[in-house]
């Protein structure tokens, strides 16, 4: 479903370059739950950002369902980010001015023209409610992120990533910032999603978390081991 071909990524570091990715080849099959592990600073987030089209590799290509993505127009890439991929960050990244429901609806609002939005508002709001219920936040639907706990915020972020029914769900240490109880709730959600057929790529350096996945990969020295 998604495959990378020899991804390279450098960052300037003083006079030298920091070679973060040095030819990453990886393939994720449909319905798979993949965990990417590695030491801090090994380039896990960098790789995930490239998979999510948030960043570009210096060399190499990402193919989504056989289509190279970085050769497509910016508008097309924006659309892929909007429709095909859901992203969950370690630090939730919700918009503080919007309430839970509006945050979850953000991808719908970004992806639709005003006219489409108005026309489809009822359906999309129902969908949003469904995903919010699925992460157990129906009571907090009108609250702002600032009034939620960390675990609840992360569940909002998951709901936002799911609302467009993406083919691929990317998660960058989704439990890294949470206590074990909240982390468990989040992991349960991921497990349930995967059981329902959702393809998931999750970055973590917690072996217990990774145990949930079908497959584990280690990123060492810029390569998949």
């Amino acid at each position, binding site marked *: 479903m998604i495959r990378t071909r020899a991804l390279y990524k450098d960052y300037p570091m003083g006079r030298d370059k920091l070679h973060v990715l040095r030819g990453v080849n990886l393939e994720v099959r449909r319905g798979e739950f993949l965990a990417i592990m590695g030491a801090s600073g090994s380039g896990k*987030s960098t790789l995930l*950002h490239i998979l*999510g089209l*948030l*960043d570009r590799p210096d060399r190499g290509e990402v193919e989504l369902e056989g289509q190279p993505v970085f050769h497509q127009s*910016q*508008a097309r890439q*924006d*659309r*892929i*980010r*909007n*429709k095909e991929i859901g*992203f969950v*960050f*370690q*630090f939730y*990244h*919700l*918009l503080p*001015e*919007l309430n839970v429901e*509006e945050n979850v609806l*953000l*991808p719908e*609002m*970004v*992806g*639709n*023209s*005003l006219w489409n*939005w108005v026309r489809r508002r009822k359906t999309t709001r129902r969908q949003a409610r469904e995903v919010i219920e699925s992460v157990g936040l129906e009571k907090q639907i009108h609250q702002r992120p600032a009034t939620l706990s960390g675990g609840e915020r992360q569940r909002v972020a998951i709901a*936002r990533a799911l609302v467009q029914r993406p083919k691929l769900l990317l998660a960058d240490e989704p439990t890294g*910032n949470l206590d074990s109880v909240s982390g468990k709730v989040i992991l349960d959600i991921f497990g349930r999603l995967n059981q329902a057929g959702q393809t998931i790529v999750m970055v973590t350096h917690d072996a217990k978390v990774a145990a949930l996945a079908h497959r584990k990969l280690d990123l060492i020295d810029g390569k998949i081991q």
Partner: protein
Amino acid sequence: MYKLLLIWRYFLKKRVAYIAVLAVLLLVMLVLVVLSIMSGLLEDTRQRNHRWTGDLVVGRDSLVGFAYYDEWIAALQNHPQVEAAAPVIKTFGLIQGGGARQLMGIDMESWCRVTHFQQTLFYQKNDRLPSLAVPAADSLPPDSQPELRGCILGYYMLAGQQGFLRPGPAAAKLSVTVFGLNSRGQLAGSGIGEQQFFWYVDDSESGLVDIDSSVLYVDFHRLQKLCYMNGLDGQPKRASEVRIKLKENVSLAAGKTAIAGLWQQFAKQYQGKPSSHLLADVRIETWKEYRRSRIAPAEKEKSLMIVIFAMIGFVAVFIIFAIFYMIVTEKIKDLGIVKSVGGSRLGISQIFLGYGALVGLVGAVIGTILGILIVTHSNEIEGLLNAWFGFRLWDPEVYAISRIPDAVDYGQAAVIGLVAILACILGASLPARRAAKLEVVETLRVD
């Protein structure tokens, strides 16, 4: 869609945006109020000058005046574009105990048709036709020509130690000495001037300070005689000016051209006749040209004000720029988030442009409404200030106008508002460009 929602939420949630709105609002209000009042004053100044002058003035600078004015007036009266024409004598007189003043000899009937003189009078404002005649009073000896004895004073000439005091018609007289000139410009008569008495019959307040403080209006024929311009030296009679009122539908420029053409023909006819040299440098001026030195300063003041406001506007754009720069810096992470769910660079910059436009719109609309309210209620506000604090914002004596101008030019108001909105968009456009160019991934790596 998300853009509108975000613009709106940012607008409501960001206190600093209120400051931007306030800045726009105050500026728009200020510009509108000051420009309206300045325009009102300028318009008022023009109108008073026009009303006092008539439409066109034909005359010479020299005190000698020009000849054949009766024939000229006859020619004017036959002209289809002329409504009325009035001869005027202008000279200077020494007033006993009052220094030198300007004397104007007017033929009341034609003078009142060409100018708005009657409206400026105190006693005779509503008479059928004002007159210089001295009302019969026991103290005056009977006179066969009473209209020759009176004078009308400029309002400010009434000023004495007790302020403005009207003596009442025929209750005060002035002794005036006039020096006449013959047609070659030499002192005429005995050469020591002619002293005469004039009785106060009325006063005129044109609202033009230079006129009201120095002009004494007397009868045309009497002043003509005093100045030796009445043809007793064997030369033709002379007048200083002929004032012209054009027909309603004739534009000033067209009227001036037509009258200038007429004058050329007229002057040619009198070539070689006695005193024809006095026709050589006669000028035809519109009221604007004739009163230029009094209108120009008011116009200058207005342009100066516009320049000052342009500079203030520049500062305002800068404030908005700074505020938006701050907001963008603070909101980089939001932009990263929007981008991560598929937002485009264009969309992100549109959020900030829209935000700027909204700040400008709200500020401009409220500012315009407040400005209009202030201008249209300026006199009530001034009255309240006066009643509460005893504070006179508006001194009618300084502006020679009793009310603060309170007319709003709505076209002008709309332009001011639009410029403010554009300035806000301009102020937001650079930060918006910056927002669109940002490498947003970096913002997503950290909390």
